[in-house]
């Protein structure tokens, strides 16, 4: 029997705005399977995003959904979570939204280790605005504003998250669709800030400029570069050249922000030290 995605899809809000071949829909389905596997209550779950193609995802979800301003999802979500710690707070968005304009909020949400799950759809480009380069566009690649090849070095989102203090960091790809739900579900269950980077594709504004002949070619690239962390342990540095690690990259058990603030409340009232 086909999987019933309708459980979490908001009635009447499909079709979505995404182009044929866009990976964002694969992530949407993965997120639904993850939420379903944990039996998350829709009215107890807030899905928060910024602006961009990826950030349109919350509108399709039958939950408490908050489509904020460009880059600000993590800051809005922090307010939601701290105000109502019992809610599940899931952030979704793109590479540009999360690591350029929203970079500051992103690293500070990681630093606080606040119990939220951030799914970043990294398609290496500003899709919605027509394909300008983002902080994750690889060096020398083409975007509408890097016609001669990108002079910038790029961010590794997962490393950035680990460096900033997130306590669960994972990476998957839109090709490895069956892994997405497992990574997201593990992230949601983790107590603390979890970041799940999904390598994604934007055939419309990135593929076309960078000589990918088809979506299939873009997906095949994701398939080829991805190496599960376990498999990587047995590989040489040479073999790992040009590869990208996938799976759970980092996990730590550290104090969570809302729990720490609860202690502030207790201390202010003369309670536990």
């Amino acid at each position, binding site marked *: 029997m086909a999987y019933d995605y309708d459980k979490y899809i908001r009635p009447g809000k499909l079709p979505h705005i995404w182009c044929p071949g866009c990976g964002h829909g694969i992530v949407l389905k993965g997120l639904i399977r993850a939420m379903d596997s944990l039996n998350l209550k829709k009215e107890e779950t807030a899905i928060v995003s910024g602006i961009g193609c990826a950030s349109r995802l919350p509108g399709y979800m039958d939950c408490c959904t908050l489509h*904020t301003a460009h880059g600000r999802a993590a800051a809005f979500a922090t*307010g939601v979570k701290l105000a109502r710690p019992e809610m599940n707070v899931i952030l979704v968005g793109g590479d540009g939204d999360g690591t350029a304009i929203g970079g500051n909020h992103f690293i500070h949400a990681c630093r606080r280790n606040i119990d939220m799950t951030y799914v970043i759809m990294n398609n290496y480009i500003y899709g919605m605005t027509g394909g300008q380069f983002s902080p994750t566009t690889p060096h020398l690649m083409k975007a509408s504003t890097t016609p001669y090849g990108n002079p910038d070095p790029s961010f590794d989102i997962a490393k950035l998250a680990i460096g900033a203090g997130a306590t669960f960091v994972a990476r998957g790809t839109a090709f490895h669709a069956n892994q997405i739900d497992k990574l997201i579900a593990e992230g949601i269950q983790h107590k603390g800030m979890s970041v799940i980077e999904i390598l994604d594709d934007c055939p419309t504004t990135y593929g076309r400029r960078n000589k990918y002949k088809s979506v299939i070619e873009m997906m095949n690239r994701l398939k080829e570069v991805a190496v599960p962390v376990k498999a990587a342990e047995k590989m040489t540095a040479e073999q790992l050249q040009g590869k990208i690690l996938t799976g759970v990259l980092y996990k730590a058990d550290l104090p969570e922000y809302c729990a720490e603030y609860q202690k502030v409340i207790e201390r202010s009232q003369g309670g536990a030290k």
Partner: protein
Amino acid sequence: MSKKVAFLQGNEAAAHGALYAGCNFFAGYPITPSTEVAEVMSVELPKIGGKFIQMEDEIAAYAAILGASLTGKKVLDATSGPGLSLKQELIGYACIAEIPCVLINVMRGGPSTGMPTGPSQSDVMCAKWGTHGDHASITLMPASVQECYDMTVQAFNLAEKYRMPVLVMPDEIIAHMRERIEFREPGELEVIERTAPSVPPAEYKPYDTRFGDVPPLAAFGSGYKFHVTGLNKMQDGFPTTKAEIVQAEEERQVRKVMDKVDEIVDFEEFMMDDAEICVVAYGSTSRSARYAVNVAREQGIKVGMFRLKTFWPFPDKQIKAIADKIKGFIVPEMNLGMCSVEIERCNMGKAQILCVNRVDGEPLNPDQILEKIKEVK
């Protein structure tokens, strides 16, 4: 029972006013001369089980209060000039998504870093025109420490009643001076709570105009699921580009305030009965103006003061009526002419308008105002 009195700074009083109004969530980013608001909230909120968070910047602070407000909290943020500039995009978000929140903006010199510890009144236009797009603004102007307290309560009431951002804007002098204030007894001031939806979750729409121009706002986490966006939206909260819906919603968002101007606008008239000259003043400047008016009266000059307690919406009706009766307006302000532009608009060429402007970080003194009063012909 005797009232609780204290000798407080304007900023401290504003924080206590917020607590009186039921504020239970504060997010902020430190900036002179507003920081004392955050400091008081960091002490007091956890004691009542509320939440205080210092965010990574002013944009984040405003974003956090909007997120918290959507869960049903009464929320406050405090800042000053550079922070007010940074928050503008999200002030617009609060306007279009119709999220109640209060921002205290203590006015210091500008533009840019300007004079961090100097008083100013140069943010009054930013309060209305800072964010892009059409929107209404409610901005209150305390002129004493007690008013910092009382007007913050009023700001929460207006934010909840009209489902929108409200600004309280003391200038640095009002925010930092100390005066005796009375803490209000429970019940002494009205405290308005957000209107909860009367329909069950399945029927709920966040912008349901069947309930009037200010539709009830449900809380995330209370059993209601709904969508919030900064895009032009339909009654169910989802984006639309349908011309007639966008037009109607934009108009409603402004109308919900402008139709209630008479209820919202608050002012004080001082010696205005027989006045031939009217000093229009607000904030600390009104204190100098009051002194100047008293001195001028002793000298036989028929002058009074109209004090703006609400800067936005602007008291058009009152100023227009005064313009019909008097010879001249005196508009003292710690900026190079902002309120005076509004006075000109309402005056429609009737009375003489004389400005007194000071932007050197020093308070406007009564002598300067008195001098202008004497210039009216």
